[in-house]
Structure formats: C-alpha cells, structure tokens
C-alpha cells in the first residue's frame, strides 16, 4: 500500500556515499549548464552549490534512472528560481514558439558555406542567445540528450524542444556565417 523510498531509511553516511558515487561525478555537467545559463563564474558557482545541496536533500526522490538528467533538472530549477530573484528582467516570459516556427521553414536561408568556427567565436555566438536557447543548445549539443530527455528535463512538450532547437541553430548559423563574410562582424 505504501511505497517508501529506499533511501529515506538508510544511514546518512551510506546516503552520502551513494550520492558521491552516483551524483557527484556529474558535477562538471551541472557546472557547465549553470555556467552557460548564468553567464559568469561567480553566479554559476552559487547556483551549482545550491543545486548540489538541494540534490542531496532530495536524493530520496531519485529513482536511480539517469543521475545526470536528474541533477541537471535540479540545476535548471535552481537557476530559474535564482534568476527570478536576482535578475527578474531576464526572465523571458513566454517564448512565442509558434511565431518562431513560421520563420523557420524558409528554404533558402543559408546559402553560405559554413566553416567550423574557433571556440571563442562560437562562445560569443551562444552567449548572445536568449536563455532558453542557450539551455537547449547545451543539453542537446554538449550533453547529447535526446529530444524526449530534454522535454522531460525542462518540462516542455517535445514539439517545443524541436522548434526551439531549430530556432537556436538558425540564429547560431546566421551569427557564425556573418563572422566569415568580408566586412562581417569580425
């Protein structure tokens, strides 16, 4: 009748040991996401630390599937709560995903031959994206999560994941292509 969490009854030290073995190996992923979202080291450290302590506190709710996705969900929640408290102006509100879709289908958008850009240029291009797009680029391209995993992790429909990703890529391609054109941004 009652399903008790296995972790709630075991000894605290055992709990910490399990946490250190299962969750802390993903601290780099946690910091990377926080760093891209927050935009600077100091705030990223605050968010990562708070998220890690919170994760330990709620470790009892971890069902043992994907520790990295579970930790990043908490980083994400912690970050958006932090953002609302500290930089409310940056909360984008509702992104108009439908409007984004319409613009995306234009076929002849990219006539340039894109080349692999250097890290500094790419970093600047990502940093210029709105926060929801930065998030999706990190989760998809750096962390390699599937559309379904990203939808679960960020609590949006899978269609929204696809349209945001498409839009983010369009913006990145435009920005990176501009870097190579004579008289472009570079």
């Amino acid at each position: 009748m009652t399903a008790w969490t296995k972790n709630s009854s075991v000894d605290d030290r055992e709990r910490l040991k399990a946490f250190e073995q299962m969750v802390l190996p993903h601290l780099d992923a946690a910091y990377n996401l926080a760093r891209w979202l927050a935009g600077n080291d100091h705030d990223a450290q605050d968010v990562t630390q708070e998220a890690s302590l919170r994760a330990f506190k709620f470790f009892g709710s971890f069902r043992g599937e994907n520790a990295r996705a579970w930790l990043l969900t908490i980083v994400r929640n912690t970050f958006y709560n932090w953002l609302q408290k500290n930089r409310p102006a940056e909360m984008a509100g509702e992104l108009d995903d439908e409007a984004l879709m319409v613009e995306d289908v234009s076929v002849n958008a990219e006539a340039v031959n894109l080349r692999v850009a250097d890290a500094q240029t790419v970093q600047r291009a990502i940093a210029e994206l709105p926060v929801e797009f930065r998030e999706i680029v990190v989760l998809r391209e750096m962390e390699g999560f599937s559309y379904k995993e990203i939808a679960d992790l960020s609590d949006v429909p899978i269609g929204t994941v696809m349209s945001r990703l498409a839009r983010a890529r369009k913006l990145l391609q435009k920005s990176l292509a501009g870097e190579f054109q004579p008289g472009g941004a570079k």
Partner: protein
Amino acid sequence: MNCQQARPLIDFYADGELDAARILELEKHIHDCPACALAWRNAQTLKKSLKQDSLFFTAPTELRRAIKAELRSQVETKSRWNFSNWNWLTTATTSVATACLVLVLTLSLTRPSAEQRLTQEIVSSNIRSLMADHMLDVVSTDQHTVKPWFNGKLDFSPPVKDLAAQQFPLIGGRLDYIGGRSVAALVFHRNKHVINLFIWPASEKDTKPAASASIQGYNVIHWTNAGMTFWVVSDLNEKELMEFVQDYDSAIPLL
C-alpha cells in the same frame, strides 16, 4: 521528397532522431539537391563547432571541495547524535542491549512507524479538506494576507510564499491539527489539482532528509528547512509535486 519536406528533417537526421524509412528518402534527396546538400553540410559543421572541448566549462576544484565539505559536515552533525546513543548502549550489558535491539526491531517491523502514521494522517486531512466545505479559513492569494492571519492562532509563524509565478498559485490557508498539534495548512493549485502544504516547527528528530511516499493515490513529500517541517500532499503526479517542493524550498532561505 521536395526541399520543403526535406529541410526540417535535416536537423532530426543530424541528431539521430529520424526514423529509418525517412532517412532513406532524405539521403536520396540530399544526393540529388545541391541546396539541401549544403544545408546538410552546414548542420554538421555547426554541430562540430559546438562540440569543441574548450566550450565545456568544468567545475572549479574549490567549488567541488566546498560542496563535498558542506555535505560531509551536514552528515557529521547528525551522526554525532547517533554516536552518543551508541555510547549509552555500550555501557548497558550486552544482553540487555541485544534484547532492546530485538524489541525495537520487532516493534518497528510489525507496527507502522511514526512516519507512516503521520503520512496517513496527512493524507486523511487532505481528503477531509477536499470533501467537507472546510478547505480554507482565510481565502487570499496574497502571502502578506495569509501569513498574518495565523498570528495568535499558532505558536509559530509559518513561512508563506505564493508560487503563482511558478504556476502554483496560493489559494489560502487554514488551521489544522496533525500529530497532536496545531499546524498551518496552506492550499495551492496546479491546474485543477489541489495541493495541501502543512507546516510546523521541526523537532530534532525531524531534521532528516526529504522523503516521498504514495498512498491511496496521493503523493506525499516531506522535508525540513529553516527550522520548520513541511509536509505536502496532492493527487498531482510526483514529478510536478517535487517541482512544487523545490520551488517552495527555494523561496525560503537555505539553512
């Protein structure tokens, strides 16, 4: 397949999210169409640009150290308590200790634990609040109206936060009676679901990690923070209820 159809599929293909049947069609189209072939190359190039190692931030060593130290100290503070209990046990004779242990074990295995009884009480209170017309003593979505309403009715001041911005609007509050004491009950909504949040001062034995349970179709999560014990119950799914817990917990200062 024409360009209109092919273009949106290029990203899915690059992400490994395209089904086998359409992969064949798309590959054929890319082979025949220079414009789409360029789009395909650009998609791959972009992916390559984004996958550079130097774009990945690694956690600074001092952060890693600080987190580990903080977690250790949390655990150590608690285990010192256990240690003093253990000392007491070793001074008693072994046989008495063993007998006690056996008794405690038997009791805890055959009887519902205090936690289980409390969970049942929380769920019952939640059901009562839904059945009778007594969910709210104070109806307000304003935390600055709800919090002072408890003044003089409780011997503590519960942290009241409205989570409307996180899609968990505060509806109001009432007095309730749980585990032999008066407690604050706050009511929130998520879509059509009702969430009851019970708050009372934490005792020493309450300061343990968060835990969740599901009972009679209701999800129950409890945790402690800022010297208070929080129990939340709802027919909302566990994932969203956990989201509520994290949002509420983030809204009060971390201790």
